[in-house]
């Protein structure tokens, strides 16, 4: 029964596609074909929006502007210069792409609502240019007389041929976007969306990934804009106005965020809905609004989310575990050498001239009272913070000031104090994310991830959602994710927090095994009962300074450590 239900979703979507095709071929009037054509144009635009908004999680309000840029490129080149579809269409993709690359570099550095506001500003600038450059754009009137599509000498008439052309583009674009979403890039974008810091710490270049998503989505928007002009033969500032953007956003949310099927379903529904009620004159907006609200309440995860609930997708067969190749490290010597590391936040000296070295195969503990600078040291080593002074040599290479993804690729892995696993991802997906920067595709990434999970006795968790795991298992999965990259240096931030004694013993065993393979391990921990038997050496920080460095048995005897951290009566 479960197998049949799991097959239901692809069958339902395929049947829907077949029904739509039959409707277009056999029953649809010219008006209905036109509505279908407009829905196709929006489906293409929303498919692109799913990449930047759905997958990468960036609320780009410039998507409507890219749609308009594609439209204006076709309109201006077609009506003013008489260029044909073969020239205007590629240029309508190129113009938004170039603008997205130029604009993306500065605005993609901004987070969440600042990014949304910046992209809204971009859209406003483009709209103002269109209105105020009448010699080029036709101003507020726009440009009439845009020629229709001519393919290989054949003028594509409106009606079924134009609908077929537009939906052919939707099919091609949808397939491309589906492959992106299901592939390495899509998985990496989801990780960037869910936790950009974790993504960077796993070796992913967050800036480049966001820029790629922004640029790719702009190309889709440009294509949709070009086709929209060919369907109405006139381009005017309305294509750049905010309602276009709102429509695209609504379609993405109602259809199902991040899914190609969601883009198509959302566009079909939202373009047809007002047409069904239009005979109600003014009242149709109320009915339309109520219908839209009902759709959002009934399917808060969108129409594809509703489908997932009713017809759960089939679990994929797990891959065969394969150990990843051991990365080559430069010759013998310390894994890490830190000299004079310093970092201040305003007037607070968080790390003050710290120096130490970590040897391959050794476990080192890093202790100190709260606020002593332990997490800041880890952040400086992993690139999440830039040091004010000092040097950091990772396997003989100076890495101070590098981006986190570059440091990660140089052999460093880390975990976070607060778990950084995405709740909506399966354990296998979460661990495979650690291999995305190394492996050429998802299949080897998942095979390597399963190897890491099995190594920690967690292979059976592969299909479970991270959000459903108890704390101990989450810690284990996080460790598997860090080890999946076969790092030369592993930094763990309070890995034993919230674990039972048995779970701590289990964790200690895994860390010893990792060290036995030559990994240098630095563990930040408050639990002395867990750390001191585990570590071969201990560093103690207080007020950003190194207070103690030596064997664990010396910690409890050191008066400075006792005074600053352990307290009297612990010796």
């Amino acid at each position, binding site marked *: 029964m479960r197998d049949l239900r799991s097959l239901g979703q692809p069958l339902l979507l395929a049947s829907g596609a077949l029904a739509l095709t039959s409707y277009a071929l056999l029953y649809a*009037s*010219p*008006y209905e074909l*036109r*509505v279908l054509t*407009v829905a196709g144009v929006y489906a293409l635009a929303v498919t692109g929006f799913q990449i930047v908004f759905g997958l990468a999680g960036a609320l780009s309000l410039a998507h409507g502007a890219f749609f308009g840029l594609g439209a204006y490129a076709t309109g201006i080149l077609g009506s003013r210069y008489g260029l044909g579809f073969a020239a205007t269409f590629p240029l309508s993709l190129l113009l938004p792409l170039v603008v997205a690359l130029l604009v993306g570099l500065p605005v993609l550095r901004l987070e969440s609502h600042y990014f949304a506001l910046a992209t809204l500003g971009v859209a406003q600038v483009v709209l103002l240019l269109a*209105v*105020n450059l*009448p010699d080029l754009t036709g*101003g*507020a*009137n*726009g440009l*009439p*007389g845009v020629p229709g599509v001519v393919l290989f000498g054949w003028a594509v008439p*409106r009606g079924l041929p134009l609908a077929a052309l537009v939906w052919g583009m939707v099919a091609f674009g949808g397939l491309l976007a589906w492959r992106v979403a299901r592939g390495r890039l899509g998985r990496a974008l989801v990780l960037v969306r869910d936790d950009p810091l974790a993504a960077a710490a796993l070796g992913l270049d967050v800036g480049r990934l966001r820029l790629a998503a922004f640029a790719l989505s702009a190309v889709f928007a440009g294509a949709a804009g070009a086709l*929209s002009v060919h*369907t*109405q*033969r*006139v381009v*005017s*500032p*309305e294509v750049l106005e905010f*309602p276009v953007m709102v429509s695209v956003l609504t379609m993405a949310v109602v259809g199902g965020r991040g899914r190609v099927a969601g883009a198509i379903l959302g566009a079909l529904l939202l373009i047809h809905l007002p*047409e069904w009620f*239009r*005979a109600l*004159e*003014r009242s*149709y*907006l109320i009915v339309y609004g109520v219908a839209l609200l009902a759709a959002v309440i009934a399917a808060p995860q969108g129409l594809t989310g509703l489908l997932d609930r009713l017809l759960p997708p089939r679990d994929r067969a797990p891959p065969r575990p394969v150990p990843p190749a051991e990365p080559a490290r430069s010759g013998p010597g310390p894994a890490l050498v830190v000299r004079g590391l310093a970092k201040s936040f305003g007037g607070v000296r968080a790390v003050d001239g710290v120096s130490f070295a970590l040897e391959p195969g050794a476990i080192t503990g890093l202790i100190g009272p709260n606020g002593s600078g332990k997490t800041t040291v880890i952040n400086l080593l992993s690139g999440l913070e830039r040091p004010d002074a000092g040097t950091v040599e990772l396997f003989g290479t100076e890495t101070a000031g590098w981006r986190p993804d570059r440091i990660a690729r140089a052999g460093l892995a880390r975990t976070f104090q607060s778990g950084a696993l995405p709740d909506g991802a399966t354990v296998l997906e979460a661990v495979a994310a650690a291999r995305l920067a190394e492996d050429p595709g998802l299949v080897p990434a998942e095979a390597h991830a399963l190897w890491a999970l099995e190594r920690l006795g967690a292979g059976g968790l592969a299909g479970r959602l991270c959000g459903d795991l108890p704390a101990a298992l989450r810690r284990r999965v996080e460790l598997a994710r860090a080890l999946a990259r076969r790092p030369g240096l592993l930094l763990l931030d309070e890995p034993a927090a919230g674990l039972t004694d048995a779970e701590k013993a289990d964790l200690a065993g895994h860390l010893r095994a990792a060290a036995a393979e030559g990994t240098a391990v630095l563990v930040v921990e408050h639990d002395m009962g867990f750390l001191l038997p585990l570590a071969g050496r201990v560093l103690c920080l207080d007020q950003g300074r190194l207070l103690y460095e030596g064997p664990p048995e010396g910690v409890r005897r050191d008066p400075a450590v006792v005074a600053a951290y352990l307290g009297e009566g612990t010796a």
Partner: protein
Amino acid sequence: MASALPLIGLLLAHAAAPVRAEEDISIPVLVPVTGFLSLEGTSQRNGALLALKDAVPGLTIRSDVIDTGTSPEAAVTALERAAGGGGVVAVGASMLGTQMLAMLPLAEEYGLPLVTVSGTASITEQGNPWVFRFFPGDAVTKEAHARYVVEELGKRRAAVIYQTTAYGQSGKAHLDTVLKRLGAEPVFAEGVDPTAKDLLPVLTKALAAGPDVLILHLHSGPTALFLRQAAAQGLTIPVVAGSAMHQPSTAALLEPAELKGVCAETAASPVSGGSPEMEAFTEAYRREFKAEPDAFALGQYDGTRMVLEAVKAGARTPQAVRDALAGGTHKGLAMTYRSDGKGNMAHSAVIVCYDGASRVPKLAKRYDNVTGVVP
């Protein structure tokens, strides 16, 4: 004989059936009843529907109203929908210029006359023989607008404030041309966005240029906002506004005192009366729609009546209606209409002024047959 009656009735019914099918006539009305032009679009709708009421004795004329919103895309979809309805001889089409420009190619393809009150100049400059504009274009209204300022008020230092829309840019261009010809080039000109919520900055800048008259070419809402702010500032120079000001719905946004000294150009002002026919129209409009008619309602009424005259005279196809519109003359309530060969049917404009005591303006000056097209 009595027994033959049913048979005769059957034969008559049979004979009448094809005639009914043949005379299945439709004049759909595709106008913006939602969005920023909903007030004007509703006037258009009402004017068309009033004209179609009891239009041709013995003939039922269908008239579906389809909202076009304000996007060209929705307008084209609406036209495609209407064209598929069958029996369409003409279409009451949106007053929004960008929507008209988008509908024109499809209207030509289907061969459907579009009857509109859009003032955007370029819709009749596309060489499309299927468009008929029953509202004076900018070439007429702006001629009246500028001439009233210069010739009647004797002002030569105008500050022009216009909208950054198709309507605003087109009107501004025509005003520039006429004012220059009259030797009264503006001392100040600035475009404002229709969504601007404070027009005091542009008013202040305009006054700083030392004008002796303010010429407005704004949509309804911005016109009311500008005049309210100007009145609050104690403006002492006259204001001659665009056609949006004549609309009763615009005047309703202002106190009568705020309208003192304000004039406006328009095609007509039905509420101002002027003839028994015009007063009858205004009464009928009020009765039917519980609202005050404006020049857009009257223009669409006159245009639709001209289509109906053609139908009454036997036109049963779009081509026949087009020919009648293109070649005929129609004495409407607002003016006498005749095509200039491009589809511009209206060639007269009026100036109305408010006395500060009432929201109903009085006719100040007529500019008839400005283009000389009407014989």
